[in-house]
């Protein structure tokens, strides 16, 4: 028995010295499955997720590498859930159309279902945890209010998930997935808290606390609140396929509560 510890990833098959296996592997494409250039391969297309999950928790990589991979995964999900839904003029018009016309076309419905299923497959609670901690730290300035905000954030995520489960009992999505999706969609609120609690005070200090600068900063706070609220609301309603006032209004209330706390605290 050699001292070699086999890695969990399929890359490890390269190290086998077994002749029989080598023969088998000679017919197998063992190119790097993480390489995006190989996206045409059926094997990689269908099993990238499995490979990615299998590669988690390996002991033979640095902490930095693990963190980098986790952040990359979070960023990948954000690219699908949050980034594209910034309240641009075009998107707002399409969203308002969606709200007024409760029934979408069948094609967009199926696309949404697939999108939800895709994101559901990769749902995690790490990103929501990071966002909630960042939000609570920014708003509380790391003081005693942190714990209250932390609990409040998770309570609101739970309420939003419960609301979506209750209003859409036929959706093939479970509670944890809804919590994860809601957690991703508070990312704009985290940005709002960073801007209003860290960046604006710094700018105000640099401007010398003059009356006009306070007026402008206050106005900018309100504008940031509205933009981030719309961003969060658009993201969560599109990614969870929530349609109509009845489904969207409670989500808006919860997100508005979070945004308002960041604005006035």
């Amino acid at each position: 028995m050699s001292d070699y510890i086999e890695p969990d990833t399929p890359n490890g098959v390269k190290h086998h010295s077994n002749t029989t296996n080598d023969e088998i592997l000679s017919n197998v494409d063992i190119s790097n499955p993480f390489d995006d250039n190989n996206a045409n391969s059926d094997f990689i297309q269908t099993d990238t997720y499995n490979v990615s999950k299998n590669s988690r928790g390996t002991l033979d990589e640095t902490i930095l590498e693990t963190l980098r991979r986790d952040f990359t995964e979070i960023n990948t999900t954000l690219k699908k859930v949050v980034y594209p839904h910034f309240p641009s003029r075009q998107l707002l018009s399409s969203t308002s159309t969606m709200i007024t016309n409760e029934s979408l076309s069948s094609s967009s419905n199926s696309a949404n279902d697939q999108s939800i299923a895709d994101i559901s497959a990769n749902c995690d609670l790490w990103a929501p945890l990071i966002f909630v901690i960042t939000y609570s730290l920014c708003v509380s300035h790391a003081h005693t209010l942190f714990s209250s905000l932390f609990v409040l954030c998770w309570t609101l995520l739970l309420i939003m998930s419960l609301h979506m489960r209750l209003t859409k009992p036929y959706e093939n999505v479970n509670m944890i997935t809804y919590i994860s999706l809601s957690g991703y969609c508070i990312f704009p609120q985290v940005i709002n808290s960073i801007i209003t609690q860290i960046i604006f005070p710094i700018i105000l200090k640099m401007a010398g606390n003059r009356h006009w600068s306070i007026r402008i900063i206050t106005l900018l706070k309100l504008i940031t609140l509205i933009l981030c609220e719309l961003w969060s609301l658009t993201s969560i309603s599109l990614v969870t396929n929530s349609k109509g006032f009845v489904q969207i209004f409670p989500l808006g209330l919860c997100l508005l509560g979070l945004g308002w706390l960041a604005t006035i605290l």
Partner: protein
Amino acid sequence: MSNTKYGALNGVDDDLDGVDDFLDEPNPFEDSQHGTSVSNATVAPDLDTKSMATTVLPDYSEIADDQQEPSGEPHGEYSNVNNGSSTNVNNSTSVHGELPPGLINYYSKFFQLSTETFKGRFLRSLRINQLIFESESYDPESRELFGAIWITCAIVLVKFMFPGLINLVHYGIIKGERISESVPTNDRDKIYWNLIHSIWLFGIYSFVVPFIVLQIILKDDTNGEDNGLPQNEPTNDAGGRHMTINANAKNLIGLITVYGYGNSIWLFILPILDITNSIATRFKTAIAIEWAIIALAYVKTAQYMNMQICNRGNGHVRLPFTMIFVLGFHIIFSVLLMFTLY
């Protein structure tokens, strides 16, 4: 897995104990009851082929109609409901096809209403002499918790936001002063105390008071409900008196719906009270105005309660014993609201 490359990799024996040694064994965790879902399943193609797994989705074609036209009924065909707990739901479904109250999906029937229905009830609750329910007769589908819960939450949020918004506009934008320096700490703390007070006050009034009122209604209703079901039409009892309680108000959910929509007036009253309260420090008459506004809101809500709870089937209206308690609770609520929030 039909992929040959994947199969070839599975065939590699690493001479170590592991999962690969049991690939030919049947999966003991495979859910045999999942057959119904699998039979209807379609494999969803990946949208983003870089990182997503192939996901099996149930075919919703058979339940599409139900989804588009949600009803308030418990949905005996709930066997199709939700993925994660579908097995539990199936096992827990009673003989009559109704879910037990311990499951989340049991309560989903109280949240199935269309936007038009909600808007219609909300607007009717603001008008005078209009029923929020579509008819006075007993209709289980008309009962819901959505309005009661989210109108109450909206009121709490409005009460929390509006004083802060007034400060932000008054000091931040008009005066150009920092709120932390201009507004006393006590006033800022009061906003958070008011949040707590509004939560328990509206929570109790919307969800606990209906339960108490229901007990009184059941005792007051002289005709009773021998079979446990509400009666549809007003009838005369032996003494010649009329059934005076609306059938929809004779159950807890219906009564919570009545109380929930009855709160909608406060969505407009509380911001007005906040404005008058902000000028009350300079004008003492503002306090009198506040009490006058509260009194008007009380009259409007009392009229609404009378309209929703009392039945006017034969045109003969007798103020039932229940209404004394309903109006009494409402007086207590209004006074508490004034003392705790202002």
